Protein backbone atom coordinates (compact mmCIF):
# COMPACT_ATOMS: atom_id res chain seq x y z
CA UNK A 1 0.00 0.00 0.00
CA UNK A 2 2.78 2.40 0.94
CA UNK A 3 4.67 1.49 -2.24
CA UNK A 4 1.50 2.14 -4.24
CA UNK A 5 1.10 5.65 -2.80
CA UNK A 6 4.76 6.42 -3.49
CA UNK A 7 4.42 5.11 -7.05
CA UNK A 8 1.38 7.36 -7.49
CA UNK A 9 3.43 10.35 -6.30
CA UNK A 10 6.26 9.47 -8.71
CA UNK A 11 3.86 9.06 -11.65
CA UNK A 12 2.02 12.30 -10.92
CA UNK A 13 5.29 14.17 -10.54
CA UNK A 14 6.66 12.66 -13.73
CA UNK A 15 3.62 13.81 -15.71
CA UNK A 16 3.94 17.35 -14.32
CA UNK A 17 7.69 17.41 -14.91
CA UNK A 18 7.42 16.24 -18.53
CA UNK A 19 4.75 18.85 -19.31
CA UNK A 20 6.81 21.57 -17.60
CA UNK A 21 9.85 20.60 -19.70
CA UNK A 22 7.80 20.71 -22.89
CA UNK A 23 6.23 24.07 -22.07
CA UNK A 24 9.56 25.64 -21.04
CA UNK A 25 11.24 24.16 -24.13
CA UNK A 26 8.52 25.61 -26.35
CA UNK A 27 8.84 28.98 -24.61
CA UNK A 28 12.62 29.17 -25.08
CA UNK A 29 12.69 27.61 -28.56
CA UNK A 30 9.58 28.93 -30.31
CA UNK A 31 8.79 32.16 -28.46
CA UNK A 32 12.30 33.39 -27.60
CA UNK A 33 13.95 31.90 -30.70
CA UNK A 34 16.82 30.09 -28.96
CA UNK A 35 18.16 26.89 -30.59
CA UNK A 36 16.54 23.73 -29.31
CA UNK A 37 19.66 22.42 -27.58
CA UNK A 38 20.03 25.68 -25.62
CA UNK A 39 16.41 25.36 -24.49
CA UNK A 40 16.98 21.80 -23.20
CA UNK A 41 20.28 22.93 -21.65
CA UNK A 42 18.53 25.69 -19.68
CA UNK A 43 15.84 23.28 -18.46
CA UNK A 44 18.45 20.69 -17.41
CA UNK A 45 20.56 23.23 -15.53
CA UNK A 46 17.53 24.76 -13.80
CA UNK A 47 16.48 21.26 -12.73
CA UNK A 48 19.96 20.56 -11.38
CA UNK A 49 19.82 23.73 -9.28
CA UNK A 50 16.38 22.86 -7.96
CA UNK A 51 17.36 19.28 -7.08
CA UNK A 52 20.26 20.54 -4.96
CA UNK A 53 18.00 23.03 -3.22
CA UNK A 54 15.14 20.62 -2.56
CA UNK A 55 17.51 17.81 -1.54
CA UNK A 56 19.21 19.91 1.12
CA UNK A 57 15.90 21.26 2.40
CA UNK A 58 14.46 17.74 2.74
CA UNK A 59 17.60 16.43 4.43
CA UNK A 60 17.88 19.44 6.72
CA UNK A 61 14.26 20.05 7.62
CA UNK A 62 12.56 16.66 7.62
CA UNK A 63 15.20 14.09 8.48
CA UNK A 64 14.73 12.86 12.01
CA UNK A 65 17.40 10.18 12.43
CA UNK A 66 20.26 12.66 11.83
CA UNK A 67 22.08 10.43 9.40
CA UNK A 68 22.34 12.69 6.40
CA UNK A 69 24.80 11.86 3.64
CA UNK A 70 25.49 15.58 3.40
CA UNK A 71 27.20 15.62 6.77
CA UNK A 72 30.68 15.29 5.36
CA UNK A 73 30.22 17.91 2.68
CA UNK A 74 31.75 21.38 3.04
CA UNK A 75 28.20 22.69 3.37
CA UNK A 76 27.74 21.07 6.75
CA UNK A 77 31.20 21.76 8.13
CA UNK A 78 30.16 24.48 10.59
CA UNK A 79 27.28 22.34 11.76
CA UNK A 80 28.68 18.94 12.69
CA UNK A 81 31.95 17.24 13.47
CA UNK A 82 34.01 16.34 10.44
CA UNK A 83 35.09 12.93 9.31
CA UNK A 84 31.89 11.02 9.77
CA UNK A 85 30.36 9.31 6.77
CA UNK A 86 27.36 7.16 7.61
CA UNK A 87 27.38 5.14 4.42
CA UNK A 88 29.97 4.43 1.79
CA UNK A 89 27.61 5.23 -1.07
CA UNK A 90 26.75 8.92 -1.39
CA UNK A 91 24.56 8.29 -4.45
CA UNK A 92 21.90 5.91 -3.19
CA UNK A 93 18.35 6.70 -4.40
CA UNK A 94 16.80 9.66 -2.62
CA UNK A 95 13.53 8.02 -1.68
CA UNK A 96 15.25 5.26 0.30
CA UNK A 97 16.76 7.95 2.54
CA UNK A 98 13.51 8.61 4.36
CA UNK A 99 12.31 5.18 5.43
CA UNK A 100 11.27 6.47 8.85
CA UNK A 101 9.08 9.35 7.73
CA UNK A 102 6.31 8.81 5.18
CA UNK A 103 5.81 12.55 4.68
CA UNK A 104 9.43 13.12 3.65
CA UNK A 105 9.46 9.92 1.58
CA UNK A 106 6.41 11.10 -0.37
CA UNK A 107 7.87 14.58 -0.87
CA UNK A 108 11.15 13.11 -2.11
CA UNK A 109 9.30 10.76 -4.47
CA UNK A 110 7.01 13.53 -5.78
CA UNK A 111 9.44 16.44 -6.12
CA UNK A 112 12.86 14.85 -6.71
CA UNK A 113 12.15 11.57 -8.48
CA UNK A 114 8.92 12.74 -10.12
CA UNK A 115 8.92 16.43 -11.03
CA UNK A 116 12.64 17.19 -11.26
CA UNK A 117 13.56 13.77 -12.69
CA UNK A 118 10.80 14.09 -15.26
CA UNK A 119 11.63 17.69 -16.09
CA UNK A 120 15.32 17.13 -16.76
CA UNK A 121 16.28 14.71 -19.47
CA UNK A 122 19.37 12.96 -20.71
CA UNK A 123 17.88 11.35 -23.79
CA UNK A 124 16.86 14.60 -25.51
CA UNK A 125 20.27 16.02 -24.60
CA UNK A 126 22.10 13.18 -26.36
CA UNK A 127 19.63 13.20 -29.27
CA UNK A 128 20.18 16.91 -29.84
CA UNK A 129 23.95 16.38 -29.59
CA UNK A 130 23.66 13.77 -32.33
CA UNK A 131 21.57 16.16 -34.44
CA UNK A 132 24.24 18.86 -34.04
CA UNK A 133 26.96 16.42 -35.10
CA UNK A 134 24.91 15.21 -38.06
CA UNK A 135 24.45 18.77 -39.26
CA UNK A 136 28.22 19.25 -39.06
CA UNK A 137 28.10 21.64 -36.11
CA UNK A 138 30.80 19.92 -34.03
CA UNK A 139 31.79 22.98 -32.00
CA UNK A 140 28.22 23.50 -30.81
CA UNK A 141 28.00 19.80 -29.97
CA UNK A 142 31.11 19.93 -27.79
CA UNK A 143 29.92 23.13 -26.10
CA UNK A 144 26.55 21.50 -25.49
CA UNK A 145 28.01 18.29 -24.03
CA UNK A 146 30.74 19.79 -21.85
CA UNK A 147 28.73 22.88 -20.93
CA UNK A 148 25.63 21.02 -19.80
CA UNK A 149 27.56 18.50 -17.68
CA UNK A 150 29.83 21.07 -16.00
CA UNK A 151 27.16 23.74 -15.50
CA UNK A 152 24.83 21.05 -14.15
CA UNK A 153 27.47 20.13 -11.53
CA UNK A 154 27.85 23.82 -10.62
CA UNK A 155 24.08 24.32 -10.48
CA UNK A 156 23.62 21.35 -8.13
CA UNK A 157 26.35 22.80 -5.88
CA UNK A 158 24.74 26.26 -5.88
CA UNK A 159 21.36 24.69 -5.14
CA UNK A 160 22.82 22.84 -2.15
CA UNK A 161 24.35 26.09 -0.87
CA UNK A 162 21.04 27.95 -1.19
CA UNK A 163 19.29 25.06 0.54
CA UNK A 164 21.78 25.14 3.41
CA UNK A 165 21.26 28.89 3.84
CA UNK A 166 17.49 28.46 3.97
CA UNK A 167 17.79 25.52 6.37
CA UNK A 168 20.03 27.54 8.69
CA UNK A 169 17.69 30.53 8.52
CA UNK A 170 14.80 28.31 9.56
CA UNK A 171 16.84 27.27 12.58
CA UNK A 172 17.55 23.67 11.59
CA UNK A 173 20.78 21.89 10.85
CA UNK A 174 21.74 18.54 9.45
Amino acid sequence: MKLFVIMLAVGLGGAMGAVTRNLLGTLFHVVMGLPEYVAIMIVNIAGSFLIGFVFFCLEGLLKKDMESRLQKTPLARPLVDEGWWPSSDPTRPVVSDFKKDLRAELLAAFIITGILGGMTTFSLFSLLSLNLAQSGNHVAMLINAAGTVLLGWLAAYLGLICGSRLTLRLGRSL
Partner: protein
Amino acid sequence: MTFTLTMLFIMAGGSLGALARFLCQGLAARCTSWPGWIPVLIINVLGSIIIGIAVAWLSIDIKDLNLQNLNPATRVLEELALNEMMALIAVGFCGAFTTFSTFSLENYLLSIDKKGQMLLNMIGTTLLAYGGVMLGWFLGSLGGGS
Protein backbone atom coordinates in the same frame (compact mmCIF):
# COMPACT_ATOMS: atom_id res chain seq x y z
CA MET B 1 -7.29 20.80 -29.33
CA THR B 2 -4.21 19.18 -30.82
CA PHE B 3 -2.16 21.04 -28.21
CA THR B 4 -4.20 19.59 -25.35
CA LEU B 5 -4.00 16.11 -26.87
CA THR B 6 -0.21 16.36 -27.20
CA MET B 7 0.07 17.54 -23.59
CA LEU B 8 -2.02 14.57 -22.46
CA PHE B 9 0.24 12.15 -24.32
CA ILE B 10 3.33 13.81 -22.87
CA MET B 11 1.83 13.52 -19.38
CA ALA B 12 1.04 9.84 -19.90
CA GLY B 13 4.53 9.12 -21.20
CA GLY B 14 6.11 11.24 -18.48
CA SER B 15 4.39 9.45 -15.63
CA LEU B 16 5.23 6.04 -17.11
CA GLY B 17 8.85 7.08 -17.63
CA ALA B 18 9.31 8.42 -14.10
CA LEU B 19 7.68 5.30 -12.66
CA ALA B 20 9.90 3.02 -14.73
CA ARG B 21 12.98 4.89 -13.50
CA PHE B 22 11.84 4.68 -9.89
CA LEU B 23 11.17 0.94 -10.19
CA CYS B 24 14.50 0.27 -11.96
CA GLN B 25 16.35 2.14 -9.20
CA GLY B 26 14.49 0.18 -6.54
CA LEU B 27 15.16 -3.12 -8.31
CA ALA B 28 18.86 -2.33 -8.63
CA ALA B 29 19.09 -1.36 -4.96
CA ARG B 30 17.37 -4.60 -3.95
CA CYS B 31 19.14 -7.05 -6.27
CA THR B 32 22.63 -5.62 -6.55
CA SER B 33 25.13 -3.87 -4.31
CA TRP B 34 26.14 -1.27 -6.90
CA PRO B 35 26.60 2.33 -5.86
CA GLY B 36 23.55 4.43 -6.74
CA TRP B 37 25.03 6.15 -9.79
CA ILE B 38 25.41 2.95 -11.86
CA PRO B 39 21.65 2.30 -12.23
CA VAL B 40 21.19 5.96 -13.22
CA LEU B 41 23.92 5.57 -15.84
CA ILE B 42 22.25 2.46 -17.25
CA ILE B 43 18.86 4.19 -17.26
CA ASN B 44 20.24 7.22 -19.10
CA VAL B 45 21.98 5.07 -21.75
CA LEU B 46 18.89 2.86 -22.20
CA GLY B 47 16.63 5.89 -22.61
CA SER B 48 19.02 7.32 -25.19
CA ILE B 49 18.92 4.09 -27.21
CA ILE B 50 15.10 4.07 -27.11
CA ILE B 51 14.80 7.73 -28.16
CA GLY B 52 17.20 7.10 -31.06
CA ILE B 53 15.13 4.17 -32.31
CA ALA B 54 11.82 6.01 -31.88
CA VAL B 55 12.85 9.27 -33.53
CA ALA B 56 14.60 7.61 -36.49
CA TRP B 57 11.67 5.25 -37.04
CA LEU B 58 8.94 7.88 -36.74
CA SER B 59 10.72 10.50 -38.84
CA ILE B 60 11.13 7.99 -41.66
CA ASP B 61 7.42 7.23 -41.46
CA ILE B 62 6.56 10.95 -41.60
CA LYS B 63 8.78 11.39 -44.69
CA ASP B 64 7.08 8.44 -46.38
CA LEU B 65 3.66 9.90 -45.71
CA ASN B 66 4.53 13.09 -47.53
CA LEU B 67 5.68 11.09 -50.54
CA GLN B 68 2.57 8.99 -50.78
CA ASN B 69 -0.50 10.65 -52.21
CA LEU B 70 -2.95 9.71 -49.52
CA ASN B 71 -6.21 11.59 -49.50
CA PRO B 72 -5.85 14.68 -47.32
CA ALA B 73 -8.08 13.60 -44.44
CA THR B 74 -6.25 10.30 -44.00
CA ARG B 75 -2.90 12.02 -44.20
CA VAL B 76 -3.82 14.55 -41.51
CA LEU B 77 -4.97 11.77 -39.23
CA GLU B 78 -1.87 9.67 -39.87
CA GLU B 79 0.42 12.64 -39.27
CA LEU B 80 -1.42 13.44 -36.07
CA ALA B 81 -1.03 9.86 -34.89
CA LEU B 82 2.71 9.90 -35.64
CA ASN B 83 3.15 13.23 -33.86
CA GLU B 84 1.32 11.93 -30.81
CA MET B 85 3.47 8.78 -30.87
CA MET B 86 6.51 11.04 -30.85
CA ALA B 87 5.07 13.02 -27.91
CA LEU B 88 4.27 9.83 -26.00
CA ILE B 89 7.49 7.87 -26.57
CA ALA B 90 10.25 10.41 -27.18
CA VAL B 91 9.26 13.56 -25.29
CA GLY B 92 7.20 11.89 -22.58
CA PHE B 93 8.56 8.45 -21.80
CA CYS B 94 12.24 8.74 -22.75
CA GLY B 95 12.44 12.32 -21.50
CA ALA B 96 11.15 11.41 -18.07
CA PHE B 97 12.84 7.99 -17.90
CA THR B 98 16.25 9.60 -18.23
CA THR B 99 17.24 12.28 -15.77
CA PHE B 100 19.81 15.01 -15.67
CA SER B 101 19.11 16.46 -12.25
CA THR B 102 19.94 13.26 -10.37
CA PHE B 103 23.06 12.89 -12.53
CA SER B 104 24.26 16.40 -11.58
CA LEU B 105 23.49 15.92 -7.89
CA GLU B 106 25.37 12.61 -7.87
CA ASN B 107 28.34 14.23 -9.60
CA TYR B 108 28.51 16.80 -6.82
CA LEU B 109 28.14 14.21 -4.04
CA LEU B 110 30.82 12.02 -5.66
CA SER B 111 33.16 14.98 -6.14
CA ILE B 112 33.58 15.31 -2.37
CA ASP B 113 35.74 12.26 -1.80
CA LYS B 114 35.22 9.92 -4.77
CA LYS B 115 36.58 12.01 -7.62
CA GLY B 116 37.52 8.99 -9.73
CA GLN B 117 33.95 7.72 -9.74
CA MET B 118 32.73 11.23 -10.54
CA LEU B 119 34.93 11.42 -13.65
CA LEU B 120 33.87 7.91 -14.64
CA ASN B 121 30.21 8.90 -14.23
CA MET B 122 30.53 12.21 -16.10
CA ILE B 123 32.55 10.95 -19.06
CA GLY B 124 31.01 7.49 -19.13
CA THR B 125 27.39 8.63 -19.12
CA THR B 126 27.96 11.33 -21.75
CA LEU B 127 29.90 9.09 -24.14
CA LEU B 128 27.74 5.98 -23.64
CA ALA B 129 24.52 7.97 -24.06
CA TYR B 130 25.89 9.51 -27.24
CA GLY B 131 26.88 6.06 -28.50
CA GLY B 132 23.47 4.77 -27.44
CA VAL B 133 21.58 7.39 -29.40
CA MET B 134 23.78 6.65 -32.45
CA LEU B 135 23.08 2.93 -32.09
CA GLY B 136 19.36 3.60 -31.68
CA TRP B 137 19.33 5.89 -34.71
CA PHE B 138 21.05 3.18 -36.77
CA LEU B 139 18.60 0.49 -35.61
CA GLY B 140 15.59 2.76 -36.20
CA SER B 141 16.74 3.62 -39.72
CA LEU B 142 17.07 -0.10 -40.49
CA GLY B 143 13.56 -0.98 -39.34
CA GLY B 144 11.61 2.01 -40.60
CA GLY B 145 10.56 3.02 -44.09
CA SER B 146 8.90 -0.24 -44.98
